[in-house]
């Protein structure tokens, strides 16, 4: 799973959101690292909807234009949790070694 896809799915963990909301939340949650362009986001949303990881929750009209809210499906929730667990396990390989080494150095 690519980093932008991960943050798109993570942005929907707290509830449905529209395109611009996802962009802002992904930017905040990644510490400004993931700045999704609109075209890139909708390409990703199309693929994720095709894979059954997200679905349209509802639609409203803002200034005469449709605005859809997307939500995570159960498969999407499982996929992002699994990816988070994988990255956590991968991170532990490094942090588990660095922490004792730092403690030894400080002592």
């Amino acid at each position: 799973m690519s980093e932008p896809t991960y943050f798109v799915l993570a942005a929907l963990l707290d509830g449905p959101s529209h395109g611009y909301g996802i962009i802002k939340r992904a930017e905040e949650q990644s510490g400004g690292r993931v700045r999704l362009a609109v075209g890139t986001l909708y390409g990703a949303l199309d693929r994720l909807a095709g894979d059954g990881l997200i679905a349209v929750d509802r639609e409203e009209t803002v200034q005469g234009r449709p605005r859809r809210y997307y939500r995570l499906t159960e498969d999407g929730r499982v996929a992002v949790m699994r990816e988070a667990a994988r990255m956590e396990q991968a991170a532990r390989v490094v942090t588990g070694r660095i922490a004792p080494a730092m403690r030894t150095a400080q002592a």
Partner: protein
Amino acid sequence: MSEAFTETWYRLFLRAFPSRHRAEYGTEILGTLMNDSPRRVPSPRETAALVTAGFAARARKAAEGPAPWWADGLHLGLLTLALANLSYNIADQASPWWLATSAALVVALLRGWALAALPLALVIALSTGRAMLHMLVGAEATGWAPFLGPAYHNWVSLTPYGLLAAGAVVLAARRSRDLRTRPWWWLAIPAAAFVLTYAPGFIEYGETWQLVRAGTEGVLLLAGVWATIVARSPRWALAAAIYVLPGLASALTNPPASLQHTAYWSALAALLLVMVATGWRRAAKA
């Protein structure tokens, strides 16, 4: 610049997406671009993203087509050979009959009509190879000469035409009507050949022709590498091999005299290798 201009600008670049994607998300994309981050001047970053995401969506859509990857790659490879054949016939100012035959083959392949492409590809292959066939079987259809195009006198030069005919036989033998209809913008290639041929001061196969040819091939091969990375399909590598290998065989048989030509063929070979390697690795990972 006004917001109306910005919207028109984004609407223009939205066309990079396939029509289904535009119908599904087009208005929403414009809404997000215009309502949520209003700008009077189009953003270069958003414009570039529309183009790249649009072409990526097109590559993925191509890879999801009903035809198997090898038939789609073969179809695209034959189309590139047919376009090169038509472009060179335009530059050679071949007879109207021959131009019509070459153009009809391009149209048949663009529309995905395998059965219509077969007799045209066979006629073109037999005609270009008639001198060699004459040496082999001793019969020459001289009465047809005014209707025919150029004839080549060595087997290496005939390789693309042999591939064209063999590929058309394979596509027709599948008896399946699942080949894609390809966009008319491919006709920009023979159109460019027409403009170059009839432009004032045109030198046949001169520097301008060579530069336009190398540029077109380079852009298409780079687009193929990118599509292979995005869609994880070896179809573009197959198409590139069908186009590049006959030329490479010719360059190896008659090594180019200039450093410029050696560099040109090396670049085409390198791009083909990159595409094959990418297609192989991506297909293995998928």
